[in-house]
């Protein structure tokens, strides 16, 4: 009985998140299969076969699988599920949509966002926005898990030499159709896997002022994030949001600018290695989790910071 990891990809590239799930899988056993379901995704399957720790790749290609619609993908995963002991995906928006649907088809209670593997049926996971960590034991025969990406290092992209086997799609369920997408384009590192992140909050006052963060981000190769307040106010798009219900990040360096530090925001970034807070309010809760705090006017500080980093 092995482990099946559902690959996250866009038919072109294998997303790094998949490799976090592979690492979690290797804590459960050594027989790790990756499922690549898509259309024209042979390249993704080849990339998955090279990931260290992967022993087999299943490739299902069909038009109805092109956009990962859970209605079409879940029946396929559930059918495969009977022959595996563990089904895993990283807790991305795609993984979160798919896995509960699979779990219900298998009559399994999923364990969401595991942070560690404590035993063959025992896992830790965050509850209450990460203000408590629960250790839970599953009594289901098949374990359906989503994995918190920041809790498991990505498996090396090279080192494996798995075989690729083609399997058939279960067809179009006829329940849903992909219409389109608007993806934020950025030359910067991807937020959830960036080693440095600089985020802005309500204190930024408007979207234009995020240029101040970009100037600093350019100097240190950082991704840009935001608090819910900044997204709600329309300063930046939704995919910038870091927090309990947004993205979970744990970079080496997190710089919070003009962010007060609501518990929902802290939930998304407090596992960062080093946290810097820049805020004019010295009482802001963000300072309670910051390794380095700088109290002052961000509109004065940010240009200075960009300049100072430029000196190197």
């Amino acid at each position: 009985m092995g482990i099946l990891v559902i690959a996250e990809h866009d038919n072109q590239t294998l997303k790094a998140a998949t490799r976090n799930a592979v690492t979690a899988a290797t804590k459960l056993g050594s027989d790790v299969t990756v499922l690549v379901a898509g259309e024209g995704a042979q390249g993704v399957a080849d990339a998955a076969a090279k990931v260290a720790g992967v022993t087999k790749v299943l490739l299902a290609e069909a038009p109805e699988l092109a956009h990962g619609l859970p209605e079409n993908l879940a029946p396929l995963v559930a059918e495969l599920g009977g022959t595996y002991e563990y089904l895993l995906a990283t807790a991305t928006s795609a993984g979160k949509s798919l896995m509960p649907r699979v779990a219900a088809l298998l009559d399994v209670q999923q364990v969401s966002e595991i942070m560690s593997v404590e035993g063959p049926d025992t896992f830790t996971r965050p509850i209450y926005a990460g203000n408590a960590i629960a250790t839970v034991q599953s009594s289901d025969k098949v374990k359906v898990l989503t994995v918190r990406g920041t809790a498991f290092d990505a498996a090396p992209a090279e080192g494996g030499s798995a075989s690729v086997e083609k399997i058939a799609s279960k067809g179009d369920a006829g329940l849903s159709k992909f219409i389109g997408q608007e993806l934020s384009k950025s030359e910067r590192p991807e937020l959830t896997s960036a080693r440095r992140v600089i985020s802005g909050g309500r204190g930024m006052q408007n979207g234009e002022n995020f240029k101040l963060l970009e100037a600093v981000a350019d100097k240190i190769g950082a991704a840009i994030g935001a608090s819910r307040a900044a997204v709600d106010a329309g300063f930046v798009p939704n995919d910038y949001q870091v927090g309990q219900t947004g993205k979970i990040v744990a970079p080496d360096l997190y710089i919070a600018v003009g962010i007060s530090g609501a518990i929902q925001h802290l939930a998304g970034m407090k596992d960062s290695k080093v946290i810097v807070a820049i805020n004019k309010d010295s009482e802001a809760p963000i300072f309670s989790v910051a390794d380095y705090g700088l109290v002052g006017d961000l509109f004065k500080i940010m240009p200075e910071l960009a300049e100072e980093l430029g000196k190197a």
Partner: protein
Amino acid sequence: MRVLVPVKRVIDYNVKVRVKPDGTGVDMANVKMSMNPFDEIAVEEAVRLKEAGKAEEVIAVSIGPAQAQETIRTALAIGADRGILVTQEGAEPLAVAKILKALAEKEGVQLVILGKQAIDDDSNQTGQMLAALLGWGQATFASKVELGDGKVTVTREVDGGLETDEIKLPAIITTDLRLNEPRYASLPNIMKAKKKQLDTVTAADLGVDAAPRLKTLKVVEPPKRGAGVKVATVQELVDKLKNEAKVI
């Protein structure tokens, strides 16, 4: 069209949650309880559909202890028409989905709008599970909902930005933060809500086995971060990041 909206009673989002010293859970004694914020957005969306003449009836359902009646009353004050309390404590998402499936079939609903996750256990499962059990399409993390003829077009907040999907009715929608801004219930509406119909059933009445599949072995506080230092200048900050933390 009839719309079902599940609402969960959770610790208020402003409360700082404390772990019990014996590690069995979090302290719920004398803590302010409220409706899960994502469920409030779901109720608001359903009520707007009714106000737009696209839905005839909005049914709010809560699965929990007797006090969950208060949560249902809140939904009724926002504008739901009637409520159902399923008295079942500690139900896991799969059991909740089974209960909701039974209710959706019994009430003949065409649309179920749920919060994408509850802020207590942060599972983010129930809507997707319910969709699977009913064999319906699902639109998770909705930021815009357009009801059409026999279908619903939903803009969803995904990791890379926004995705638009078209889902055949009957369907499941789970709400994200920016779908709408829930109204405050007015005093007259709160008074009116007290007179609205609220039925009580049990999971067993609905033929659902709600026995848990997961066992919580312990609950602990996350590791605390050590107290940091305040720096006085940008130069000092950059120096610390370079030479002390060594992260740039």
